[in-house]
């Protein structure tokens, strides 16, 4: 395609392929609009959106970990009660007087250990992931009951720990009703995105590659700016940026970097695409597998911490069904069931889609039984749409 002139039809095609990549965002927007209408305007309030984000945090980080697992054609069914158990462990440690930072570090390390052990059983012993992680799910359900048995619910006594999922970055100043720190953070992230996109484009120019047309590029930038702008203003109207947002953004940034810019990321995608070929190309596939499960354990621990902090206590049933929400988030976001394809950033948006459903349905007063029913239907529809638009099918 050396011709420089593009026909209108080709422009159309570029637009369509680009839109396809943003399908998730469009889905999210549609859900927002529907709930906004159904709830008579109480869905898209500063308060509720803040709430929604803080609610999503624990599933979002677990979806990030799960994305890697699904890409390498494995599955992790244990993260629900592993997260529940580790949350309770954190509560116990705090109760025993351990300081917040050591508690968090210990719990995260425990998560990594649990993931490592599962990875070793799967990778070295050769028990399939489905079975290993199912067994761990049973086991940790038992352990969770054990450590919460004596006391029942364990309340969190540390304010700092509680702040993790309920607190906000400190206020610097106020502009009218709006939070100043939030506006600054918003402005900085807008600038960062515009800057990095322009740099990317320049780099492409330097290599003399064809990039998307200028018009489309500007549209894309405007879209991002508008999105972040709106979010910033909305959040600033309530209490600003929560610590959950900060944590999720950091996690996504690190994982995206690893997946897209490092050897390990390449190996993960390659191994997902064809493990045998990857191995014969010099990938230590066992190490990648064990590492992925360790990372999943870490994210489960973080999820457990966020959830416990959110509730302000550890309960005997915490963690039930988290794994399914995390898996659904990934699949809704286009992770392939046959492996090799997926993106952590999209999976986080997938988590938002799932949680905004729960949040919105709650808001308009739909009963829990119908909530599950509706979630199931939307899940199928979303994946069907994704599959059709990419022209890949489950069979043939």
């Amino acid at each position: 395609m050396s011709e420089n002139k593009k026909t209108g039809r080709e422009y159309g095609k570029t637009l369509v392929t680009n839109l396809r990549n943003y399908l998730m965002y469009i889905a999210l927007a549609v859900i927002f609009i529907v709930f906004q209408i159904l709830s008579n305007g109480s869905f898209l309030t500063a308060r509720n959106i803040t709430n929604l984000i803080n609610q999503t945090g624990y599933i979002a980080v677990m979806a990030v970990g799960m994305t890697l697992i699904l890409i390498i054609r494995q599955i992790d069914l244990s993260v629900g009660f592993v997260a529940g158990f580790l949350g309770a462990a954190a509560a116990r440690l705090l109760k025993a007087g351990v300081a917040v930072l050591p508690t968090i570090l210990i719990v995260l390390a425990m998560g990594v250990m649990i993931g490592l052990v599962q990875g070793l059983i799967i990778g070295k012993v050769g028990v399939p992931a489905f079975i290993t992680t199912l067994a761990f799910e049973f086991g940790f359900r038992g352990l969770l009951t054990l450590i919460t048995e004596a006391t029942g619910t364990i309340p969190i006594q540390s304010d700092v720990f509680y702040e993790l999922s309920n607190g906000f970055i400190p206020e610097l100043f106020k502009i009218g009703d709006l939070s100043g720190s939030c506006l600054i953070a918003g402005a900085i992230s807008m600038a960062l995105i515009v800057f990095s996109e322009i740099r990317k484009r320049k780099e492409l120019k330097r290599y003399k590659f064809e990039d998307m047309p200028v018009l489309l590029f500007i549209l894309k930038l405007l879209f991002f700016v508008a999105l972040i702008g709106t979010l910033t203003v909305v959040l600033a109207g309530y209490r600003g940026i929560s610590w959950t947002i900060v944590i999720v953004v950091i996690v996504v940034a690190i994982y995206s970097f690893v997946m897209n810019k490092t050897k390990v990321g390449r190996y993960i995608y390659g191994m997902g695409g064809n493990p045998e070929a990857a191995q014969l190309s010099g990938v230590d596939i066992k190490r990648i597998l064990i590492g992925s499960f360790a990372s999943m354990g870490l994210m489960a621990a973080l999820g457990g911490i966020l959830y416990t902090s959110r509730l302000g206590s550890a309960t005997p049933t915490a963690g039930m069904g988290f794994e399914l929400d995390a898996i659904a988030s990934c699949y809704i976001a286009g992770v392939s069931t046959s492996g090799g394809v997926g993106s952590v950033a999209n999976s986080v948006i997938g988590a938002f889609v799932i949680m905004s459903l729960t949040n919105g349905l709650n808001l308009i007063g739909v009963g829990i039984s119908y909530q599950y029913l509706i979630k199931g239907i939307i899940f199928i529809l979303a994946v069907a749409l994704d599959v059709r638009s990419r022209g890949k099918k489950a069979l043939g």
Partner: protein
Amino acid sequence: MNDYILEMHGISKSFPGVKALIDVNFSVKRGEIHCLVGENGAGKTTLMKVLSGIHPYGSYEGDIVLNGQIMKFNTIRESENTGIAIINQELALIPDLTVAENIFFGHEIMKRGLVDWNETYKQADIYLKKVGLNINPRSLMRDHRVGTQQLVEIAKALSKNAKLMILDEPTSSLNEEDSANLLRLLKELQKQGVTIIMISHRLKEVVSIAETITILRDGATVYTMRADEEEITENKIIKYMVGREMDNIYPHRESCVTDEVLFEVKDWCAYNAKSGQTVLKNINLKVHKGEIIGMAGLMGAGRTELALSIFGNTPEYKITTGELYLEGNRVRFSSPKDAIKKGVAYATEDRKKNGLILIQDIKFNTSFANLDRIRNRGVINRNEEVVQANKLKESINIKAPSVQQILRNLSGGNQQKVVLAKWIFATPKLMILDEPTRGIDVGAKFEIYTLMNEMVKQGMSIIMISSELLEVIGMSDRIYVMHEGKITGELSKSEATEQKIMHFATNTEELS
């Protein structure tokens, strides 16, 4: 009389960024063997997929006229019902089913709503006999060699009562003996009234078997040649295929062999970890710097096993004794990773199974075995990757709109070139190539041979495992012949002949 069983008129078909077929006309006479030839990516497979309904009606332009009637196939099933059977480039057998189950897969013999197993096995036996196979229909598909599998595919086609049989590169993964066998069978089927369309890059067999040859180039029919109208020669076919005369199939080469031994294998033995069987017995070989070693032998002689046991210490051939020396130092590769790090590369023979990551694009696959080359302080530079991949794509002429093309959408031969690109990119000291030109057209073969010459000129050494005797003779400085896990002969370039190689490849008498 011109009795055409099939006429395809003005067929055009496009994929995003690729015009695969442009106004192709293709006519096949009843009862003939018609060969379809052309360079990699010329559109041969695509044309046959259009014919058999794999690319359904509506996804292409033009008409398919079968027995005088226009056909509009929406599925492969519909084309099968009219007597068309296609055997794809990539075999479609299910390894864990029995031979009989495979033959009747999709059109089982039923009795009162249940599968009639007695009849199934009885019928299977009859069809197996028809293709000259003497195997148990109850045996598992996975236990049979590729040659046998290919024949089972034909038995399957016959069981569907095929009148028009399409074979896409049926001999590309067969050795000479199995190939000859298959061609004989096709002749036999022809006598029984089956019309055959065969795609092949092996021009010798095309010349020997075809009544008519249609040549495709860049998605268009360039010439149709009939044996009863003109004399058919390989050179003529090549001329139309590549658009110019090719005087030589092998590029001129000067020996770059040095006295320095790069790699040495001493008393190497390997056992199959599962069955305990010995697969390699006391292998001794030497590779000099700048040398191209040919490894000849029949299928199952242990050449791939030798490569894998050296390179990967893979689970199947784990237990090995013996010594390896690389540049004079004793080595052992604990994993492919280790081998690659130390400068040994192995390009597998089965690109689909373990050579490539088909869901990824050209650049991803090209850089995969040597990401360090595009990394800068640990960070992958994607733009640099595109530049590098593009360079290789140009130099070995991979036909694709861009290096961002997903491999699944490339023609078979172009996929094979990506395998080579990947290992060239890894810049090893010793490159083991397992059937490097399988399914590659004459022009591209020439390019690959030229590339091999380049590599040895730069001081690399190559071990080339190949079942094509002429290729082994044409390209090697020295040849080892294997038979049943042993090296039975060693020949220098000047002494090598087809007869001598075949003698060692079939004879157990060891050369001392």
